[in-house]
Structures are given as structure tokens and as C-alpha cells.
């Protein structure tokens, strides 16, 4: 639709002048809702006519008696304020009567009671807010603990998955380390994967080391025994340990050494040994 043609048609002026048929009027109102320009134009027309009327009205000031006659009518319609002059008590407002019958002393008591109730409420809410604050702190702590635990679990799961991937890889070799005559019942396992370059160790059956001693893991290659580190005294038999990978290892061995380990093994203290098969 051509908005400016519509605005210029004069229909908006007739709308403000209230000279349209109901249908035409509804149409204008629909357009005014739809188009801000139309609404704006209507307002401007209203303002113009308004100022025109007010200027004209400046010389048609009504007699003050009109106001004097209207004001009593208005006052009779204003609902009397509680403290207002006692107008004739109409039966339609019976609520006023008991209120005005209340003595000032009773009013004081009522006010005091209301104040007390308000104070009580305040204390109650204060205590409740405190209590809530404490529970929130507690919950926050528990939440952060759970978060840490969850993070640990996640790390451990990732670790397990990586280890599982190594274990299930077809290139992984199972190197069973069987007990020497020093410890015929001891067993350990090394999972050795030359393709991915990974090695895992599990103390399948190693008794707890005597006091002051520690197990030390060795990889034996063309250069002789290579230190792969000491095993923690608390290492349990079912734990799977990722160890340093060395290429072309011929065999793995565990010796019992003084605490802290040695640079080269004391082969008389050999506990378990196993060859890497091809």
C-alpha cells in the first residue's frame, strides 16, 4: 500500500475530527497499529487541532460558577479517606464503622503487635538466610570434591583405555618373567610392543620386598642391562605400570636391590627373568 498517498488522502484528518463511519474508523485504527508513520501523523493532527482549540478557548473562558457547581458533585463521588470529615455514613460502607470505633489504646496495641510480628519475621528470615548460607558452603565443598574425584576418574579411565589399547594390540608380546632359584614362585609380566613403542609392566606375583630393599626392573639388550627404574614398595600385584620403552630388548629382569636402586644390577639377587620371544 502507498503509505504517503494514504496519509495525504485526508482520511486521517477526518479520523481525528471524528467524521468517519465506524468501518472507516476501524480501518484507520488498524493502519495506525500497523504503521508508525500513520500513528505519528495522527498524533500531529491531534496536536494541531488541540492547539487550535486551546487558542480558541482562550477567549471562551467559562464562568467560575461552573467549577463551583461541579466540585461538590465530584467530592460526593470521592471515597472518603479514613480520617476525613465524617460524611453521612452510607450503608454501603459498613467497614468504616468498626474501624472508627476502635479506641486509640487498642490501636497502639495493634500497632505494637504488628511491629512485633514484623520483627519476629525479620529475625526468622535472617536465621533462615544464615542457615541457607551454611548449607550452600557445605554443598560447594562437596561439589568441588566430587569434581576433583570425577577428574581423577576420568584421567584414570583414559590411562586404562590407553593400556587396554596396548594390551589388545596384536603386535603386543606377552613376556612372562618367571622366578629364578632365589624366588621360584615369583612371577611378573611385561607387555612389549615394538610397533607402537610401548611397554607395560605388571608384578603378577612378587612378594613384598624386605625392609631397606626395593625391586628394580631391567631391560637387557645388546649393550647389557638397562635400568628401567625401581618399583614402589607399595606396588600391588594387579597394577599395570607404563615403563620406559627401549627398542630391541632381548629380555626383562627384576632384581632385589638396596633402596633407591643401583646403576647396574646385582645378578646374584635376580628375582624373575623372561626373554622377549620373536
Amino acid at each position, binding site marked *: 500500500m502507498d503509505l504517503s498517498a494514504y496519509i495525504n488522502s*485526508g482520511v486521517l484528518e477526518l479520523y481525528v475530527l471524528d*467524521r468517519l463511519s465506524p468501518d472507516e474508523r476501524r480501518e484507520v485504527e488498524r493502519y495506525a497499529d500497523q504503521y508508525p508513520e500513520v500513528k505519528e501523523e495522527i498524533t*500531529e493532527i491531534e496536536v494541531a487541532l488541540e492547539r487550535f482549540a486551546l487558542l480558541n478557548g482562550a477567549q471562551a473562558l467559562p464562568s467560575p460558577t461552573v467549577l463551583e457547581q*461541579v466540585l461538590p458533585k465530584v467530592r460526593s463521588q470521592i471515597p472518603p479517606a479514613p480520617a476525613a470529615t465524617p460524611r453521612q455514613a452510607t450503608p454501603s460502607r459498613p467497614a468504616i464503622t468498626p474501624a472508627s470505633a476502635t479506641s486509640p489504646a487498642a490501636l497502639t496495641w495493634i500497632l505494637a503487635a504488628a511491629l512485633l510480628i514484623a520483627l519476629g519475621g525479620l529475625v526468622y528470615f535472617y536465621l533462615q538466610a544464615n542457615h541457607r548460607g551454611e548449607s550452600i558452603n557445605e554443598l560447594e565443598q562437596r561439589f568441588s570434591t566430587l569434581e576433583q574425584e570425577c577428574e581423577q576418574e576420568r584421567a584414570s579411565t583414559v590411562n586404562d583405555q590407553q593400556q587396554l589399547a596396548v594390551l589388545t594390540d596384536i603386535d603386543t608380546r606377552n613376556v612372562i618373567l618367571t622366578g629364578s632359584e632365589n624366588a621360584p614362585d615369583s612371577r611378573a609380566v611385561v607387555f612389549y610392543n615394538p610397533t607402537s613403542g610401548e611397554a607395560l609392566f605388571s608384578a603378577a606375583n612378587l612378594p613384598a620386598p624386605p625392609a631397606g630393599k626395593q625391586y628394580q626392573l631391567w631391560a637387557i639388550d645388546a649393550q647389557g642391562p638397562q635400568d628401567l627404574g625401581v618399583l614402589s614398595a607399595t606396588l600391588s600385584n594387579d597394577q599395570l605400570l607404563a615403563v620406559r620403552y627401549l627398542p630391541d630388548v632381548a629380555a626383562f629382569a627384576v632384581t632385589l636391590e638396596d633402596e633407591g636402586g643401583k646403576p647396574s644390577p646385582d645378578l646374584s639377587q635376580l628375582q624373575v627373568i623372561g626373554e622377549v620371544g620373536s
Partner: protein
Amino acid sequence: MPSLANQDNQDVLLQLLRKKDEAGMRYLFEHYGGALNNIISRIVTEPEIAQEVLQDVLMRIWENIDKYEVDKSRLFTWMARIARNAAIDRVRSKAYRKGGKTDQLDVVVINRNNLSETMNIEHIGLAKLLNNLDVNYRSIIDLLYFKDYTQAETAEALDLPLGTVKTRSRRALQQLRQVLKHELIILFITTISFI
């Protein structure tokens, strides 16, 4: 004192009226009594009856303020409609039997002659305003706004084709707005120099 219509005035008035505050009636009378009275007395030419209608209109505004819709029109537009409708109702009532509409056209001319005799700041403004307004345009605003004339009756009274009433009222309002703009500046300057 009758001031120019500004939205603040009407906001104040609307709030007072909605609160049913007696001050609202005083405010209404002081700021808009003249304008409403003017609208009424253009239609109801007998002063005593016009005064009765004005009372009635003030009460209607007071009692029906809750029916006024802010987003439909300005407050004054709404009040002016009440005034005009009340005046028209009175003229049409059996009790009121006075000459037809046709002789009311003269009232405009008479009013205009009166203007030049009364000279205060506002009257100067209005006199200038009306002088600057084309006679054709003035009469169309008068018939449509201040009188009980339909589009068709206006066309007949002014001897115009019906379709022209619309375009003519558009042009009349355009010119009125133009003149008012000009007039506002004059009033402003007059007020300043007065202070």
C-alpha cells in the same frame, strides 16, 4: 491559564483524574475549560445551556476517565469528542429547539470580528493565526471540528464535491500546522520580551 497543549499537562491531568483527586477537576477546568467551552458554545449557542452542557461534560470526563485509552488518542482529543457529542445531543434533544445549523455559520464570522477588539498576548496570536489561515480552510475546520457536520453536510454547506472534503480537510490541517509553527515562535518571542 490556558496554556498550549503539551503532553506534560495532559499526563498530570490524567494521573489526577485517575486518582479521583479533586485537584484533577480543578486542573481540568483551569487548563481545558476554555477550549471545551469553546467547542460546546459553537454548537449550543445559548450561553446558559452551554454552561449546563459544560458541567455535564466535566462530569462525564471525571466519571469515564477509566474508559480513555492512552494508545488510541491524546487525552484532549478524547475530551473534545465528549464535549462535541454532549453538545450535539443537547441540540438534538426535544427540549432544545433553536434555529438549524445553517445560521451557525455566521457565528464564525462574528467571533472573528470580536477578535480584533480583544488584544492580549494570546489573542494577538490567535488573530494572526486565523488571519493567516485561508478562509476556505478555516471554514472546513470549523464545520468538521466545531460543528455537527458530517462529510456530506460539509460538502453541501461549502458547495463542494464530497470527495473534495477529504483533500480539503487535509490541506486545511496542513496549513493550520504551518501557521501554528509560525505562531508558536511569535508567542515565544512575545513571552520572552514580556519577561
